[in-house]
């Protein structure tokens, strides 16, 4: 067969594409690649359709073997990669011939790398998408050793221009631009969000980034609510910063729930959500108004 075999999946490797937009009224979230910019970049440089499925690999550790002659590319978090001990350039297509093995190390910066194949991964689609939604369980299971993935047929097409090259994810503090609302009026001082730094909790995943204060110091206020009224559940968007009663905010990523029962204080600008999706546990974040 044409294809790719998973030898080791690393901590978490998932199949993702651009997800399932338009199904929210059936309770289905969009899901899809967490860092869409890096995902699109991978497909563009290979001449794939934008929605061709690829592997989203969290913190490297992925080993694969070619079952046929393939062309691949790695984008997103710059995981050091080798084919037969020869280093591979990040973001540049490379061949993997039948039987050859590709090994991804742990990226020094960023969290999620995208490994795309010319032709795209050909696994069964669910509701029009090959994405794994870790919240609802829709889509393929997380990749496991021994999985053999078929590759779609690639036909030369009018290739859209590659996106401007993504900057590699930064290791230092990230500043994300936000717009306040829809529920900023539920908080005593909504702008406390903008005050001081936040820390990406290890307890973060594709549903959302949990945010802690670096030290629970007096100069870094928690996000106090005006009262303890319960909010009737309402629709939430990608990038929403939801604040449960604990005061520990959650920044929603690709697999966020369709509705939420806690007030959303602010929403991260769409263009900055990709950078948020590359933030590693322990990394510092700041929020700034646009």
């Amino acid at each position, binding site marked *: 067969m044409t294809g790719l075999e998973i030898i080791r999946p690393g901590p978490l490797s998932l199949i993702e594409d651009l997800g399932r937009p338009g199904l929210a009224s*059936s*309770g289905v979230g969009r899901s899809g690649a967490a860092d869409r910019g890096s995902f699109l970049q991978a497909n563009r440089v290979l001449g794939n359709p934008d929605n061709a499925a690829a592997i989203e690999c969290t913190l490297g550790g992925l080993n694969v073997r070619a079952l046929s002659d393939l062309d691949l590319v790695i984008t997103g978090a710059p995981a050091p990669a080798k084919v037969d001990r020869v280093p591979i350039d990040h973001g540049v297509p490379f061949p993997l011939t039948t039987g050859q093995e590709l090994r991804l190390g742990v990226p020094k910066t960023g969290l999620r790398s995208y490994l795309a194949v010319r032709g795209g991964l050909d696994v069964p689609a669910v509701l029009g998408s090959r994405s794994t939604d870790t919240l609802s369980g*829709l889509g393929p299971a997380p990749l496991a050793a021994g999985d053999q993935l078929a590759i779609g047929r690639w036909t030369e097409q009018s290739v859209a221009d590659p996106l401007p090259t993504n900057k590699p994810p930064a290791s230092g503090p990230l500043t994300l631009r936000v717009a306040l609302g829809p529920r900023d009026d539920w908080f005593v001082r909504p702008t406390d969000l903008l005050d001081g730094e936040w820390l990406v909790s290890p307890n973060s995943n594709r549903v959302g980034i949990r945010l802690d204060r670096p030290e629970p110091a007096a100069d870094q206020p928690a996000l106090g609510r005006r009262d303890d009224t319960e909010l*009737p*559940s*309402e629709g939430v968007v990608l990038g929403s910063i939801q604040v449960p009663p604990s005061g520990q905010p959650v920044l929603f990523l690709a697999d966020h729930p369709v509705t939420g029962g806690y007030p959303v204080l602010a*929403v991260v600008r*769409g263009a900055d959500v990709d950078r948020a999706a590359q933030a590693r546990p322990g990394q510092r974040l700041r929020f700034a108004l646009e």
Partner: protein
Amino acid sequence: MSVRVLPAGDAALLIELDSLDAAVALTQRVRAAELPAVIDLVPAARTLLVQTAGGTDLAAIGRAVLELAADLPTQAPEATASDALVIEVSYDGPDLAAVAEAAGLDRSGVVRAHTETLWRAAFIGFAPGFAYLTGGNPRLRVPRRAESRTTVPAGSVALAGEFSAVYPRASPGGWQLIGTTDQVLWDTDADPPALLQPGRWVRFVDVTDGSPS
């Protein structure tokens, strides 16, 4: 009727309304209007989230939605029996006794209360295809279980707060389980995949002893 348009990032608006019925009615109007650049609608208890493709004039979308929200009905439309999806239920759930006690009814009283009114799918949340049904007998308002179950089977008929629901797929859950149904509510090959869409009427029918009573 008060309608507020709240910002929800750079590609969406959250429309806040007085009631669930207003939210359902506005959702139907906005869907029918096919506004350009609107890619998804998320109705909920008091709100409608309008999501756009981005790079859209949100102010213009807000104005268009406000126009559609003029003279919204404040009450649900009258249901007729033919509108309702009939769901046959065996009232054999593990929490039926606890619900009966909380409601101050006996088991058959719970079944009667659950089957005697029409329910309406208000919104979908929590999980794919999980419809929150409203309009039940107020005596059936029971709290969620103190502890969630790690797995609730698909087809479980449940109560929590003012809502009833049928678990469309197996999932964890903290609602009180009063019965089971064979009705398929979730089918990834169907369009839409969730049988219960917001606004849909439902009637539960008791088939505990094999045939509709």
